[in-house]
């Protein structure tokens, strides 16, 4: 038995919004692999929950009328990894979320929960930042769409307006972001399964038509600061540059201008800075290879 005060089960998005307005103190629960564990350990004990888990309309991946990739917030990690649209246009997201927890956690964990808990180490977060994902929130005043970088306010806090009854309903990846774009994610952890990233790095590139120049490069980290973040200095080095091994080195060193990891029991700041450079380099090289480029 969980120590919960009450459970309200939403049957639709509209019902979830109404419940949220009616019970402002209640915690939203999607798959529950964070919320229920925190309830068990006491942190959320005695609280009311609004379950949105049974709203099947919020599951699945599709291409919407504006050609965005639309990922329903309740889509599980394993379904994202297996989805043909994700595999075709944004394979790195499927690879990143395939490193969350264990197979059972990937079956229950949702991309909405992974982002709404506002944790910097979330395996989806760096890739969603690197692909400039849009977060869709639905509340009493309708739909609000914001860039993912604005969604994260500070560690553990995201821009969801509970007083407007908002819940996150989808994550979108715009066509401009995924077209001809290839990426790679590296998670650094001490073991392969049931691990929280010591550092996560996600890079993607779009190459020129002759595949010799990087037209656009984006890089984002998890655990390099209190929220997931891009590394604009490194992107500036790569954008418009001819592909070479020297470029990969220069690009990787430039991340040190942008990131500010901390000391924690998982890893020291110095170690994180050290591996951040190496991960950026490896991710860039792998992304270029996936895009059909050759490192000279």
């Amino acid at each position, binding site marked *: 038995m*969980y*120590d919960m005060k009450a459970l309200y089960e939403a049957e639709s998005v509209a019902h979830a919004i109404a419940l949220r307005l009616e019970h402002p103190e209640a915690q939203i629960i999607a798959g529950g692999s964070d919320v229920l564990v925190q309830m068990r350990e006491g942190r959320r004990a005695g609280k009311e929950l609004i379950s949105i888990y049974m709203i099947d309309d919020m599951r699945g991946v599709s291409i919407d009328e504006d050609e965005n990739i639309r990922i329903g917030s309740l889509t599980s990690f*394993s379904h994202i990894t297996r989805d043909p649209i994700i595999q075709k246009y944004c394979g790195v997201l499927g690879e990143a979320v395939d490193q969350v927890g*264990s197979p059972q956690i990937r079956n229950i964990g949702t991309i909405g929960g992974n982002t709404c808990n506002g944790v910097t180490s979330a395996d989806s977060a760096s890739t969603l930042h690197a692909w400039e994902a849009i977060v869709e929130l639905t509340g009493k005043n309708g739909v609000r769409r914001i860039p993912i970088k604005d969604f994260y306010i500070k560690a553990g806090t995201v821009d969801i307006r509970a007083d407007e009854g908002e819940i996150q309903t989808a994550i979108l990846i715009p066509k401009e972001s995924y077209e001809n774009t290839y990426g790679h994610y590296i998670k650094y952890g001490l073991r392969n399964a049931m691990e929280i990233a010591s550092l996560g790095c996600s890079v993607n590139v779009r190459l020129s038509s002759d595949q010799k120049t990087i037209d656009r490069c984006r890089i984002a980290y998890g655990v390099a600061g209190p929220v997931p973040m891009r590394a604009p200095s490194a992107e500036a080095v790569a954008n418009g540059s001819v592909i070479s091994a020297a470029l990969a080195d220069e690009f990787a060193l430039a991340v040190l201008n942008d990131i500010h990891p901390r000391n924690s029991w998982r890893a020291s700041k110095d170690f994180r800075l050290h591996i951040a450079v190496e991960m950026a380099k490896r991710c860039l090289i792998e992304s270029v290879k996936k895009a059909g480029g050759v490192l000279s």
Partner: protein
Amino acid sequence: MSQYKVVHCNINGKDVERTVDVRASLTDMLRNEYHLTSVKKGCEVGECGACNVLIDGEAFNSCIYLAVWAEGKHIRTLEGLTGPKGELSDIQQAFIDETAIQCGFCTPGFIMTAVEILEANKLYTDDELRKLLSGHLCRCTGYENIFRAVKKTMYKRLGKPIDFS
């Protein structure tokens, strides 16, 4: 305040319903209402896999799954694997043959994950198999025998010669 709800679902091929406390986990419901004691209470925070069951064909840790979410779902536990006279399934027999059991606490969870693996009808590589089995902790066997039991059964079901090199 007590809050109860009638939950209808299909467990091991049988349509059933029970009134459950909304605070119950699926582990609580399967053990207390249906006496399916193969579903073990281990860590109860989704780390060890001892409570693993199949829901609509996918493996879930039932300890971090609310009982009310079982509404309309098809749930399978280890009890559903045996034949009418209690005959063991091939994967259960393989766990015995390979000595993939010592205390047995992790075994039902491991076997239900193995069922999902086997029913995919794919020949997984060793690395893929290890990743697929990585959601379970066993403090006795060292995993190697469990891995062999699953691999052996996978090869057998696919009619392929077993290669343990």
